[in-house]
């Protein structure tokens, strides 16, 4: 299978099996993300979307199969080393450091980078999220849900990733904020970052994504362009709320 726009492959999962203890979460995922693409993972709860992201960012290592990033096998590389390699992960549930200030959260995002580079990245992030600029001194835990999501994405961007993993960025946000977050996702992508997006809100995800994979109980069930998936009857029934 080629990537949608025929670009170079950045990330490749090859028959990846992953477990939490004895429970198998991924049963042979094979997929690709091309450079500059936005690829979305759809699927119901427990389908393995979050687990897939975790095997990419190194929080979980595949028991068998292979994850390749920019031609390098990263299946066994620990998470903290992959940040420097160019993978940023804004995890499910935001996971911001609530007792650290907003600025400190962003500084943590730039942990692998040197001080002078950080200034530039900080400017970029607060330009994307002006709300964060106003709240730099505040503790992360005092932000609203939407602001926390912005912080989570901004924090992940601070490492200047070439591949950004976003897990449910719209969860719990008001419709207006959801729109905002998705337009920012598009903008981040337009600035040159490849994005792998997990989203419950399939409709929104398919409007920004180039391609998508539908996961079901740890397997890829379907893969197509975003337009193709949006037109697919099964997808419409299962994830777009049509009957």
């Amino acid at each position, binding site marked *: 299978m080629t990537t949608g726009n025929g670009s170079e492959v950045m990330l490749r999962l090859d028959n990846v099996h992953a477990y939490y203890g004895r429970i198998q979460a991924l049963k042979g995922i094979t997929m690709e993300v091309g450079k500059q693409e936005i690829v979305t993972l759809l699927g119901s709860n427990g389908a393995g979307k979050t687990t897939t992201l975790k095997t990419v960012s190194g929080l979980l290592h595949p028991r068998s199969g292979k994850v390749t990033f920019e031609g390098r096998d990263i299946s066994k590389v620990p998470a903290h080393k992959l940040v*420097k390699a160019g993978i940023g992960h804004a995890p499910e549930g935001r996971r*911001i450091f*609530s007792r650290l200030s907003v600025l400190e959260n962003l500084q943590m995002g730039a942990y692998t980078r040197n001080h002078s580079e950080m200034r530039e990245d900080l400017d970029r992030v607060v330009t994307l999220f002006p709300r964060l600029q106003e709240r730099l001194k505040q503790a992360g835990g005092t932000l609203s849900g939407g602001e926390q999501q912005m912080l989570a994405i901004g924090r992940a961007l601070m490492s200047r990733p070439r591949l950004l993993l976003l897990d449910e960025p719209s969860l719990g946000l008001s419709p207006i904020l959801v729109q905002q977050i998705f337009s920012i996702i598009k903008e981040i992508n337009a600035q040159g970052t490849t994005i792998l997006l997990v989203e419950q809100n399939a409709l929104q995800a398919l409007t920004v994504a180039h391609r998508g994979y539908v996961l079901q109980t740890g397997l890829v069930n379907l893969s197509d362009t975003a337009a193709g998936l949006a037109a697919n009857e099964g997808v419409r029934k299962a994830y777009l709320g049509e009957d």
Partner: protein
Amino acid sequence: MLRRLLRTAAIGVALLVVGFALMYAMVWFAAIDKTPDKILSLATAQFFNALAAGGIYILVAVGYTMVYGIIELINFAHGDVVMVGAFVAYFISFKFLGYTGAIADPLLLLGVLAILFLITMPLLGLLGVGIERFAYRPLRNAPRLAPLITAIGVSFILNNFVQAVVTASPVPTPQLISLQSRFLVFGASIPWLYVVIFIVSLGLMAALQLFVGRTRLGRAMRSTAQDREAAQLMGVDINTTIAVTFFIGSALAGAAGIVYGLYYGQIQFTIGFFVGLKAFTAAVLGGIGNTVGAALGGLMIGFIEVSAVVVGLPRWSEALVFAVLIIVLVMRPSGLLGVSTAERA
């Protein structure tokens, strides 16, 4: 920055004033001869006693709380690390430098103390790192009870090691700072040693706060304590971060060991247990995981212990300490400055 520093200083001074007032009230309450001059001088003397005892507990409690904060382990071996620190200081000052008692020359004294701290603290830091590496890290993902039991095991190992290899009997330690060198305040004659202990303790606390609050590694430590997985996603090597935490906590325990020897003038392989227990209580009292809380708790325990003596109940001092702990926990289950679990998530 400066404003925060001033505010912290103001709060500290206010606390000490309150402590002094309480001490004064208790001395007044217990005294038979209620002449104001006598009460003031007695209260002053007891106040400085409490500062010295509290200073030691602060150094130990902070290590407890840091380790708990980052891996949620009650490191029962921490008190025994203090004990080892006391023995290391004894070996350096007595066996290697050959001092048996007080050093009169202030410059020489300063030099010897500097050597003591500069050697003992890093050595003990390494001991802490070793303990973490071999005893706790392999159990990082095991159920909570496993590392807890292991910590008790490490405590016994350190105990038995000193007992068997060094000595089982009490050892007199060189009191490098003479108890005879004193100053007069409010009619009370106070050993400089007590002031030195308290200042060392405060100074190390301030350095720790700066390190944890202002440096990149300190931020990594706080992040790891809050959310280990998220910290990894920032590029933090949590193994290194946890090792650094053990290093600092154990180095502070080493400092506590030095001070213990100077203060009590006698050490034994068993001293770790009580120091550890009290410091652990201090950490819980202040809100476990919070370094400032641990310092506050340590100071409070110093004051409670001395108060017990003042009101004529020295045998009840442990009971009083725990009574206060229980009262505080009933009102604030996560300790004085603790963060409730809901906020932490």
